[in-house]
């Protein structure tokens, strides 16, 4: 994407004022976005993102500059602008080590590149999903099918001699169903995605995903308002993992640990979760939505065990925060695009499977809430307080799933909730999502088997 000699010059220019490390990230990304709504293709967009990000360190100080100007002059100007901001004392001169290309073998084979599949083939799959949703029930009034695929080519080079290129390919189709009885409208959603090409879209089990989307909308249309109060909550697998992603995963990222802004800082080796909990981040899972070969600093991805049987074992660490913590990178540095300096982020994060069957967990719950599909939520990074919407929920009564309820929001505190897990199921599943944080919005998987939390506050309309 850029020649080696030019990159070496840019890396050197970035070190002119005393920086001790410089890095160049080049990105060339092709994206397609199609939206089927009102049973017709209403959006058909495509384009190319291209830019370069230059980063310079001086100790714990970091400066980042990014531009789309890829001319020699443009890149040297950006490098010198970054260098100028380093208020470095010239305490030794760093010279760029000659770049040697590192080749990587992909962990995530692609069969049909997105650009190789005609858009008409993509549209055919979207129509199929649309038909399944609309034929599900007369109360379904609208289906919105989004298909996004992309090819992201990256080049990462740094003053330590690293020079590596990679191509990331991702495809996702999300299906929104709207059910209405005239007075009221409710929505259902399912959005599977993978680090794969068109083969993922073509082989999607629409009979499952599209139907589930429609079924959720229809079920919620006939649901009662959620009760309020403190209850045991059973959270099902796949996207149910979003709670622990938000409420614990982010607190295990070096970006919050290094600054002591995390409840898990300085607690390695201590008990931080229920004994039933083993929590893992693994970017190497084959073809998963949150997977990578290398992170955005060029480090190989790996399986990082964060919590094992309730004991804190490790963090997700990037280069800069690694300096602060005096710990090695864990291949966890990610960024949305060249417009963001990378930092420690999750890939595919999940609670490892336990021994209970889902049937046992429900049967063992006298009265509580069953959250079948979770929606999104957020967490206050300083306090760990979280809130999550439940897309499909039920009351559990005498060990049986009872009536559906809607409008349930779960609130609580992450560090406490992970201690309160009292059942872990054996049905591990992963769900695709987008995670937003300081280095932008990234594809991640959240995952877990069914778990039960002994008590969470549920806020509903029935106060």
């Amino acid at each position: 994407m850029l020649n080696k000699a030019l990159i070496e010059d840019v890396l050197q220019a970035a070190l002119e004022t005393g920086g001790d490390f410089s890095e160049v990230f080049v990105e060339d990304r092709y994206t397609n976005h199609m939206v089927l709504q009102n049973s017709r293709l209403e959006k058909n967009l495509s384009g190319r993102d291209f830019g370069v990000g230059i980063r310079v360190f001086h100790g714990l100080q970091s400066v980042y500059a990014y531009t789309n100007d890829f001319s020699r002059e443009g890149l040297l100007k950006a490098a010198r602008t970054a260098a100028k901001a380093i208020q470095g004392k010239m305490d030794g001169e760093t010279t760029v080590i000659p770049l040697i290309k590192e080749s990587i073998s992909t962990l995530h084979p692609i069969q049909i590149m997105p650009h190789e599949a005609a858009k008409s083939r993509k549209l055919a799959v979207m129509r199929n999903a649309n038909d399944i949703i609309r034929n599900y029930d007369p109360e379904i009034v609208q289906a919105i099918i989004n298909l996004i695929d992309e090819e992201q080519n990256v080049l990462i080079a740094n003053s330590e001699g690293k020079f590596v290129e990679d191509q990331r390919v991702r495809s996702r189709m999300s299906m929104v169903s709207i059910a209405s009885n005239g007075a009221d409208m409710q929505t259902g959603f399912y959005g599977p995605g993978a680090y794969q090409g068109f083969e993922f879209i073509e082989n999607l089990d629409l009979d499952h995903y599209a139907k589930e989307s429609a079924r959720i909308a229809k079920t919620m249309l006939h649901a009662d308002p959620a009760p309020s109060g403190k209850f045991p909550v059973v959270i099902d697998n796949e996207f149910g993992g979003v709670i622990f992603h938000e409420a614990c995963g982010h607190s295990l990222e070096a970006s919050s640990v290094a600054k002591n802004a995390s409840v898990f800082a300085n607690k390695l080796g201590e008990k931080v979760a229920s004994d039933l909990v083993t929590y893992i981040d693994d970017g190497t899972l084959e073809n998963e939505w949150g997977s990578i070969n290398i992170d955005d600093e060029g480090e190989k991805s790996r399986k990082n065990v964060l919590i094992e049987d309730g004991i804190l074992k490790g963090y997700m660490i990037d280069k800069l925060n690694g300096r602060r913590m005096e710990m090695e990178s864990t291949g966890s540095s990610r960024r949305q695009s060249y417009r963001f300096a990378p930092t420690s982020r999750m890939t595919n994060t999940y609670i490892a499977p336990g021994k209970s069957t889902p049937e046992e967990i429900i049967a063992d719950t006298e009265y509580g809430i069953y959250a079948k599909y979770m929606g999104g939520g957020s967490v206050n990074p300083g306090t760990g307080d979280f809130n999550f919407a439940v897309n499909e929920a039920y009351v559990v009564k005498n060990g049986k799933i009872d009536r559906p309820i809607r409008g349930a929001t779960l609130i609580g505190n992450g560090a406490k909730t992970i201690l309160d897990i009292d059942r872990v199921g054996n049905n591990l599943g992963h769900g695709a999502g987008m995670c937003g944080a300081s280095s932008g919005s990234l594809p991640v998987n959240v995952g877990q088997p069914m778990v039960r939390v002994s008590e969470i506050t549920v806020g509903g309309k029935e106060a």
Partner: protein
Amino acid sequence: MSIEQLKERLFAEGENTGFTDLELYYEKKESLTIGLYEGEVDKYDFSDVQGASVRGLYNGKTGYAYTEKFDEDSVSFLLKNAVENAELIENEPEELFTGKAEYEEIEFYSPELDAVKPEEMIQFLQEVEKKILAYDPRVKKVTTSQMQNQKSEKGLFHDKGLELKEANNFLLFYVSILVQENDELKSGFVFRITKDFNELDADTIVKEVVEQGVSMLGERNYPNKKYPVVLKNEAAASLLSTFTSSFSAQAVQDSRSRLQGKLGEKIAAEHVNLIDNPFLPTGIQSATFDSEGVPTRKLNIVEEGHLQTYFHNLKTAKKDGVETTGHAHRGSYRGSVEVSPSNFYIEPANQTVEQLYAEIEEGIIITDLAGLHSGADPISGDFSLAADGYYVKDGKVVGPTKQMTVAGNFFEMLQDIEEIGSDLIFSPMSFNGYIGSPSLKIKGLAITID
């Protein structure tokens, strides 16, 4: 290659490719963001970026394509993609605006901001951090302290001759803190958006953020029930921004709005006015033309509780047989032309916040809402959100509550607005217009306390 060069080649080649109408939309942005952590500069980001999008009519259908790479190959890339995309699209073509029009003459760009030096920004951030830490022993730390100086330019070229461009710039400031007493941990934050660096006053900011943070200490539980609620201005603005899409004609035409069929009807309490003003001097969405090049104007969307109009672009207006309201909007050159308000707000009245709760026997003040992207359904209007705030008894603030959820329905809430404050503020976090509200007194909302 410059944007002008790209435009010329694109229009020249476009005619040969079979496009009957072509438009090139572009955005340029430059920014400097500085963040501080424990007295040291922790974030220092420069950006200088641009992107452009072509939109054209091909065989009577609309095709789009964008690029951030401006080089020899970009012209053919854009045209090839736009043709491919047009061939498959199935909705009505988008009309391109070629009409002669009069535009308001306002300069939103403030040259003074160009003179703000990085050193001054750092110095200010350091002053604020130092004063926060000294203000109250319960302050545990300053978690984020950031300032961004950004300028942007948007422009539109049409192959039939239309040429428009406009620049704007802002200084954004944000600080968040953690306060602690015993085991209780609470946060506070303050943001400012300004065109005048000297308007930022460290002492005012420090007082505001620390007092806000420590006022949340000493949380207590109160019974779960339906309370009269005072929604503080920031919370009210963020709630309004979540449901703003209901006012879009696009959403109405797609049956995604509860305001469908409600033109002329009473959708809010009698004393509620909702205004869209694209000419606010400090409005982030201020502009004299919209994303289609149509002149913008100030509009009353809701007058004395009655819905006057939806937000329209050329396409939605044509479908409804009305004039566009100048609300065509592109989130960026990556996206298509949509509908969005500009600076959209509930008109302030004359009550202070204290007056809003002075008559409340037992109620709740909500200062902050969280989970708006997940706990609110923009179509039905239902919401169930995490909230922070205080318990009120006999017109007096008793103290902070534990984390709450507040649940209700936005459209019912509009009818239940009993009183309106004077303290209009705009929510900084919105992708759908720049949305503002004063504090509001609401008849009743369901409150659950953790």
